[in-house]
């Protein structure tokens, strides 16, 4: 008993010491207080050197937190109790956050460098006049495949994924809208279909794709493709860019039927505590040099027209990453489907996963 008491005592003392030490460290680094900037972003979605540079230039301390889906981000911001100063959600989620007053209207007099952005990425349907959001990156969903392992195949459309020879070889992104969207686009329907018959048909055609799918995974796709665990993946353009960087046999194509075009924009959520820092960060990211360095690191396409001059020619001229205007016409942007249809898409998705 005596031993036990002293053990408990030692553990308590150590815990208190660790906690106090943590507080001291935090104060020394200043993770609380006025000069802290809380950035809520996707994982691995900024060049970390730029965070250092931003801290150096502005004197703010950046606390970087990450999310892995728009929905997870939404839930955390909506529930409150968080102090994020800036978040980078995708367009359909921004639309919803504007509707629900979860984002703060931007003061455009404090924003400098918006003229660097390609007008094609401004004033879009989800945020007319960019009253709430500033473009950060954009990209597409497409097919990444290993040319060496699949030398007998050509990929130019979603239809090509259905070939019987590809049994058990596709890594599919684990997302309801992405998967159901492929079914819809194979049949020539809209990605934002709210027609139950069309959705049922999409689910039906996807059951033909099911035997070819090796696994439904998320961020791990990158690692598996680089290690050649699989030969094809349906993934986002920037992820594909990373794969191509590591493994030269990998190629990315935009399907002919069209695909999803998405935008990730910077917004100031209603949880903001340091608005000044948020504007400083927006302006920092609008700088062409900074945007180019970030795009080079992250691999997604930059909406910053002025930054393209600082990017290597082979990047900017790659039609799979900076598609021609004709190709852009085939691309579709996700709209917020509303709770009922979001539910339906996900039910179909769950059913697909369950019975494949």
């Amino acid at each position, binding site marked *: 008993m005596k031993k036990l008491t002293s053990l408990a005592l030692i553990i308590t003392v150590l815990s208190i010491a660790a906690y106090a030490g943590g507080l001291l460290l935090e104060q020394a680094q200043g993770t609380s207080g006025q000069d802290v900037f809380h950035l809520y972003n996707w994982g691995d979605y900024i060049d970390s050197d730029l965070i250092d540079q931003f801290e150096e230039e502005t004197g703010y301390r950046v606390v970087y937190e990450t999310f892995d889906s728009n929905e997870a981000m939404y839930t955390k911001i909506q529930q409150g109790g968080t102090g994020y100063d800036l978040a980078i959600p995708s367009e359909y989620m921004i639309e919803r956050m504007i509707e629900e007053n979860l984002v703060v209207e931007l003061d455009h007099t404090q924003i400098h460098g918006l003229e660097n952005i390609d007008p094609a990425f401004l004033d879009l349907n989800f945020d007319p006049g960019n009253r709430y959001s500033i473009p950060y990156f954009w990209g597409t969903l497409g097919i990444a495949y290993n040319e060496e392992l699949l030398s007998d195949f050509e990929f130019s459309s979603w239809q090509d994924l259905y070939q019987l020879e590809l049994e058990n070889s596709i890594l599919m992104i684990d997302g309801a809208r992405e998967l159901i969207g492929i079914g819809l686009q194979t049949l020539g329907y809209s990605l934002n279909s709210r027609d139950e018959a069309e959705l049922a048909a999409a689910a039906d055609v996807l059951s033909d794709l099911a035997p070819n799918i090796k696994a439904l*995974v998320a961020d791990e796709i990158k690692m598996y493709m680089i290690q050649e665990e699989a030969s094809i993946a349906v993934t986002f353009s920037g992820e594909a860019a990373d794969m191509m960087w590591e493994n030269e046999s990998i190629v990315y194509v935009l399907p002919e039927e069209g695909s999803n075009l998405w935008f990730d924009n910077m917004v100031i959520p209603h949880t903001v505590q340091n608005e000044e820092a948020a504007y400083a960060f927006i302006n920092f990211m609008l700088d062409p040099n900074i945007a180019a360095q970030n795009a080079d690191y992250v691999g997604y396409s930059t909406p910053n027209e002025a930054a393209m001059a600082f990017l290597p020619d082979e990047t900017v001229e790659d039609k799979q990453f900076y598609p021609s205007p004709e190709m852009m016409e085939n691309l579709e942007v996700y709209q917020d489907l509303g709770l009922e249809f979001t539910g339906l898409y*996900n039910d179909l998705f769950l059913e697909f996963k369950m019975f494949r």
Partner: protein
Amino acid sequence: MTKERKWLAVPYHLWIVLFVIVPVMLLLFQSFRGLDGSFTLVNIQTYFTSRVYLTMTLQSFFYAFLITVLTLLISYPAAYFLAQTRHKQFWLLVLILPTWMNILLKTYAFIGILSQTGFVNQGLNFIGIGAQQLLFTPLSFLIVATYIEVPFMLLPVFNAIDEIDGSMIKASRDLGAGEWQTFASVIFPLSLSGVRSGIQAVFIPSLSLFMLTRLIAGNRVITLGTAIEQNFLVTQNWGMGSTMGIVLVLIMFGVMFLTRRRRKGVTVR
């Protein structure tokens, strides 16, 4: 009970109310809410008429059962022999050590071991069988889940066997029982309490393992955890997610009931 003793129980009661009763009540309350926030029975109806949810429940149940059986098959003999070794605390520590590591880290290690170019496939190549698809199969899911759950079975079983009074075994031998008979009618019945807690500690979490289902099984195995995550994080249908949570709670009660200590039979001590 004296007054002081009663006072000592206050933190315990507070804990139970705040962290057990209130959350379960909230869950129950949520499960009666529709998408629009009104009171409804529609979630329960959806659950019991949906082919997807029912199959998923059965599948979760089946995999949890397999994982529990496998961990028991591995842990019981291990615990039995462990209790007889000389440095049993040391060996126990070695077997428990993996639980000190983060579960995600262990899972990622298995990705390395089971992948096409991984350790296992290199071995298979070497002995001439050739590389097999190991990742993204139900088998690999079972292997990794069993590996992760074994310590939680081993510990209670070991404690139960270790606590058996040595004189009981001696008495059994003295009275002419053989090795097997001693095991079957003395050691095993006396270790049952450990087996029960082990089953409880392994079966329930196995029902809703959802991270492994994606990372190791590539969503080829779908458990209730997958659907609960989707309902809470993606479709914002908290009502449906809670309904499934309630189903899990009910299954848990079922398991507790089946593995409860019975009054009759072997409660010798």
